[in-house]
């Protein structure tokens, strides 16, 4: 499995900002551990059996905060590819994942109702097509919006809520009829 495949494997299915946050935390912690050479030192201990080495790595992997990263690492572990977890391999891969993760655009989406996960993924796909970058949603539900959504990405905020449209109608009415 190439680094690209690994990255794709990790990031595939990312659509929530919480997932990205956890990934950043996990990558930071794991990179610190890898950079410190903790895994390499253990793997180089000849008195340790392969099973012990695998158990050691399994322990580290099980502590990974990001479920997606954990799953990708567990798959490599199932293949008994312990060399993958050495600093010279894993360090590069994690750094690459981190670089890609940093490009994920966090879009804050305020909606009026809760949506199914599949529909949220559809919305992320829609946004990715529109913005041309990986996108993760920071979702909040506000019943008072009535419908539609308020979208915030970067410094831009776009209000497409029904509440806002009704207010616009009210202001237009006031300007055109009441204050005319």
């Amino acid at each position, binding site marked *: 499995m190439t680094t690209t495949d690994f990255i794709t494997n990790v990031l595939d299915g990312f659509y929530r900002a919480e997932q990205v946050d956890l990934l950043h935390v996990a990558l930071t912690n794991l990179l610190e551990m890898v950079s410190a050479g903790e895994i390499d030192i253990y793997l180089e201990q000849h008195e340790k059996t392969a099973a012990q080495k695998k158990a050691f790595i399994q322990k580290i992997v099980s502590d990974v905060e990001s479920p997606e990263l954990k799953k990708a690492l567990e798959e490599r572990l199932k293949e008994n590819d312990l060399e993958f977890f050495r600093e010279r391999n894993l360090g590069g891969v994690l750094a690459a994942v981190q670089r890609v993760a940093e490009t994920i655009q966090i879009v804050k989406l305020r909606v009026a109702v809760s949506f199914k996960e599949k529909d949220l993924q*559809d919305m992320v796909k829609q946004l990715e097509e529109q913005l041309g970058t990986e996108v993760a949603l920071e979702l909040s539900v506000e*019943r008072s919006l009535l419908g*539609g959504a308020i979208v915030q*990405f970067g410094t*831009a905020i776009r209000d497409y809520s029904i509440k806002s449209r009704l207010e616009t109608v009210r202001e237009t009415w*006031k300007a055109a009829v009441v204050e005319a």
Partner: protein
Amino acid sequence: MRDIVIFALGASTVGTVFLVSLIELLFTVRRRKSHMALEAKIKELKNTYNESVNKLVIEDEGKLQETEKKVEALSGEATSAREEVTIQYEEKLKKLQEETEKELEHAKAHAKKLEHEAKQKAEEYLASRQSEVEHDLMDLVISVTKKIIPESLTYEVHKELVLEALRDVKSEDPHHE
């Protein structure tokens, strides 16, 4: 005898006629004298009367002339007074008419001003009430709409509204092509 009797009868008849004529003559003379005396008296009385009348007439004419003069004088005074009164009346009437017209104009202007003010106030009040009603109307519509929308929108409509909003994101992002 007979002739004597006839003669006597004739002589008595003639004497009687003569006597009657004489008496008639006497009476006629007397009547004439009386008539003449009466006429003279009448004439005298007539003259006296005429003189009296003429005197009275002359006196009356003098009085009449004097009265006429007084009447003329009074008439002149009356005419003069009348003219003066007429002039004063006309002046007063004219002044009164002018004052009345002035008052009328003033009253009209005041009435017009009051009417204008009342109309303006009415229009302002109407506009104010209309504005309140229109404002309240839209508030009511928005309020009702806010209550109806959550109940009337299905899950699919909500989803489509969000997707529609997300489709607009691209066109509003100037950095993205």
